[in-house]
């Protein structure tokens, strides 16, 4: 297995307070890595470090290195990095424009489209890959704000797919969704695994076991254990992992 992302001794701080401590972790190409752990264990902080969304926060600082196939992401141009590592937030954030415009927005701004005629094809492909096409193909020009929560979340996935990243970070993408919408999002995630490397933060242990090949357990800013998903859930090495999985705390 080729490593897509290598995290070396990463520590993150808000206002000098350490929330993620000497994390080292490798993420293989085309795998779905789940990250589970109780609230405040640093999962979101980790994702927002990977595509440097946290660099916008002045109270945030970090040490350590993260390599994306050989390049240290902290030396990279932020826009290029975010184009290669897309991120899906817990709450879907459609832009206040039409469904069509939502998808085509980033490709247009990033100069990925040379001809106008390519637009329709990009929109259709992205929506299909996010399993949303059938539901919205007749109303592409209506406002994205009018979609249901689950549809909005898949629209946000489609929006990321349209810029064709290498890695996609999902931060509890189903926390606000009903089981059917959740199933649809999971379905598209498994679909996407063929082409992308996926990091999925989830509060749902079952979800992790449904979609991911490996799972990491974070606790209070530390990586406690990482292993093949079925092994981690069936026979965790650490007592703390077992306690969390069986619901004894967190």
């Amino acid at each position, binding site marked *: 297995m080729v490593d897509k992302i290598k995290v070396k001794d990463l520590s993150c701080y808000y206002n000098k307070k350490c929330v993620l401590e000497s994390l080292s972790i490798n993420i293989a190409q085309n795998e779905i890595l789940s990250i589970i752990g109780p609230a405040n264990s640093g999962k979101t902080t980790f994702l927002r470090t990977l595509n440097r969304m946290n660099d916008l926060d002045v109270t945030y600082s970090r040490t350590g290195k993260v390599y994306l196939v050989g390049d240290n992401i902290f030396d990279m141009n932020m*826009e290029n990095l975010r184009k290669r590592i897309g991120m899906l937030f817990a709450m879907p954030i459609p832009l*206040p424009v039409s469904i069509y415009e939502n998808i085509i927005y980033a490709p247009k701004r990033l100069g990925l489209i040379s001809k106008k005629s390519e637009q329709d094809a990009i929109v259709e492909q992205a929506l299909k890959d996010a399993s949303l096409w059938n539901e919205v193909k007749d109303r592409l020009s209506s406002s994205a704000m009018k979609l249901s929560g689950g549809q909005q979340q898949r629209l946000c996935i489609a929006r*990321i797919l349209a810029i064709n990243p290498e890695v996609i970070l999902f931060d509890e993408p189903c926390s606000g969704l009903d089981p059917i919408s959740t199933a649809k999002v999971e379905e598209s995630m498994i679909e996407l695994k063929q082409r992308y490397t996926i990091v999925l933060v989830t509060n749902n242990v079952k979800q992790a076991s449904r979609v991911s090949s490996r799972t990491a357990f974070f606790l209070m800013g530390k990586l406690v254990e990482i292993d093949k998903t079925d092994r981690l859930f069936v026979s965790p090495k650490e007592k703390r992992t077992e306690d969390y999985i069986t619901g004894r705390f967190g």
Partner: protein
Amino acid sequence: MIKLNPKLSQKLSYTILFLATVLAVVPVVVIIFIIIKNGASAITWEFLTSMPKDGMRGGGILPAILGTLSIVTCAIAITLPIGVCAAIYLSEYAKNNLLTRIVKLAIVNLAGVPSVVYGLFGLAIFVMFLKLGVSIIAGALTLSIMELPVIITTSRSALNSVPYSFREASLSLGVSRWQTVRYIVLPNAIPGILTGAILSISRISGETATILFTAAAFSVPHLPHSVLDQVMTLPYHLYIISTQIPNMPENVIFGTALVLLLMVLTMSFVAIVTRIYFRKRRKW
């Protein structure tokens, strides 16, 4: 303290609040009523489109209308782009350090400086030091400096009302900061910025003190043809005809006031309609 029963105190507070509202509204209504009653008879096509005659006692007020319009147009054309750019810088780019906080505080407080002070400043800098003379451009520059803090403040609150999550969504897709501002933040802030701008226009249309120092003339026998011309303006003209000229027909004075009032009210009305229009269209 006497303890009122709840029903009575409810009634009493309702009455007090209602009276206060009436008290606030009545003078405005009375003023508008008096101005219309005394001035409406002066408003004719000729009044709006001809030069003054008979030592301003007759004829029209065209030069004053055009004077005010040209100063206001120049002023807003200068202040709006600068103000919006400054607001974008302060809201979207500036690091939140001590210097930025001082600048922000200064801007808020500058909005409270009396206009006569700006007038004096304009006289010293634009009229005398830069040798622009008493002119449209000197008046417009002075007014733009006066309005800048207001435009910056209203533009900043318009920018800040655009949810932060939209910026995050855009940035997370690899779109640059400037493009995010240009294509996401600005389009959604435009209604607020426009409303602020229109209200500024209506505010400076009635501005007298600054203009007195920098642009206005007692009487100019021709229409303005360059920005370096002195001009008559509506507020100053109103002041002159009501205090400096004996035997001034009352309906001309009130007619002039009515024109000024209509100009300002139209602008505020446009601002309100703009706001309603955009609020209806807003999708979040």
